[in-house]
């Protein structure tokens, strides 16, 4: 135990702020901000939602491609936009998790625009390919989840900057609890993503474990 006035070493192992840091041991015990325990879990769930939203947008792209003929360039454009946005979401989620690179202002505007587009596709008939209501709803929920959790993280980071060094706050997080929270978040994201994927055109052809060989559309719908 360091004596009064000596530096105590704290190792924090989560996220980008991870190196051992020296914390004077005679600092008064400051109250731990509420966000410090949950931030790594929320960060993970944000990334999960990015993977889910990216997958669902790619399913929308695939469905638009499948129903677009040569006579319908509008659907081809919609497929390209949804596909590029889906890839951007996947890449953004990887960057966000691997390098802790948050969405900048353009990213936030793009997420808001995507949420508005998904909402428009649900409530305005003819705005998007028909029959994708559940897929669009799934994409909308996942996009809103990303927007909300990014806002929560920005707020938590802001309040943390005014209190303790980040590493000293993260040191108290238990990996078991973090992983339990992350698992719950992953199940939530997968529970929203899976019905959205199943409601797309790919879901009509998807191969259940016990029905290989029967590839007729509509034969496997389980929703």
């Amino acid at each position, binding site marked *: 135990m360091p004596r009064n006035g000596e530096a105590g070493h704290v190792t924090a192992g989560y996220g980008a702020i991870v190196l051992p840091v020296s914390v004077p041991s005679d600092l008064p015990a400051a109250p731990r901000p509420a966000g410090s325990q949950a931030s790594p879990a929320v960060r993970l769930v944000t990334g999960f939602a990015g993977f889910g939203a990216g997958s669902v947008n790619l399913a929308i792209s695939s469905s638009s491609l499948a129903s677009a003929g040569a006579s319908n360039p509008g659907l081809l454009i919609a497929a390209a936009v949804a596909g590029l946005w889906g890839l951007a979401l996947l890449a953004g989620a990887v960057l966000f998790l691997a390098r802790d690179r948050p969405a900048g202002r353009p990213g936030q505007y793009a997420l808001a625009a995507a949420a508005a587009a998904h909402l428009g596709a649900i409530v305005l008939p003819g705005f998007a390919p028909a029959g994708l209501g559940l897929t669009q709803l799934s994409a909308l929920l996942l996009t809103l989840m990303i927007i909300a959790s990014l806002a929560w993280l920005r707020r938590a980071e802001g309040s943390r900057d005014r209190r303790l060094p980040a590493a000293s706050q993260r040191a108290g997080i238990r990996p078991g609890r973090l*992983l339990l929270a992350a698992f719950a978040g992953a199940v939530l994201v997968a529970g929203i993503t899976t019905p959205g994927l199943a409601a797309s055109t790919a879901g009509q052809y998807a191969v259940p474990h016990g029905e290989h060989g029967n590839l007729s559309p509509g034969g496997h719908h389980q929703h």
Partner: protein
Amino acid sequence: MRNSPNRLIATVFGAVYLLVGLLGFAVTSGVGFAATEGANLIIFEVNPLHNVIHLAIGAALLFAGLRGTAGARTVNATVGAVYLLVGIVGLFLLNSPLNIIALNGADNVLHLASAVLLLGVGLSLDKSPATARA
């Protein structure tokens, strides 16, 4: 190991996948290897091919989890990325056996959840040299 989320999750998931693979063989006697008509293990419809895949993934995760943090990170991220990538490619190959992810079933929810969890934890946690030696 308890200080590293990657080692912890690789060990736990590895053990669970190994168990599912072993129990799967108990319920799939008489089922064709790659096959067509599987048997139910709780909510998972499995056949011997799935059992082998579960055993291989479980062994890789468990080995990496027991070995060290760097290996656990790599295996976690690789397993998650491969599953997600196969599923996404399958969305565009409608009549392909790769079209496996777009099914509204509890087993698909769990598979997708484990894929994003392994990929996310592998990418995001245990980045420091300090915890890499944990």
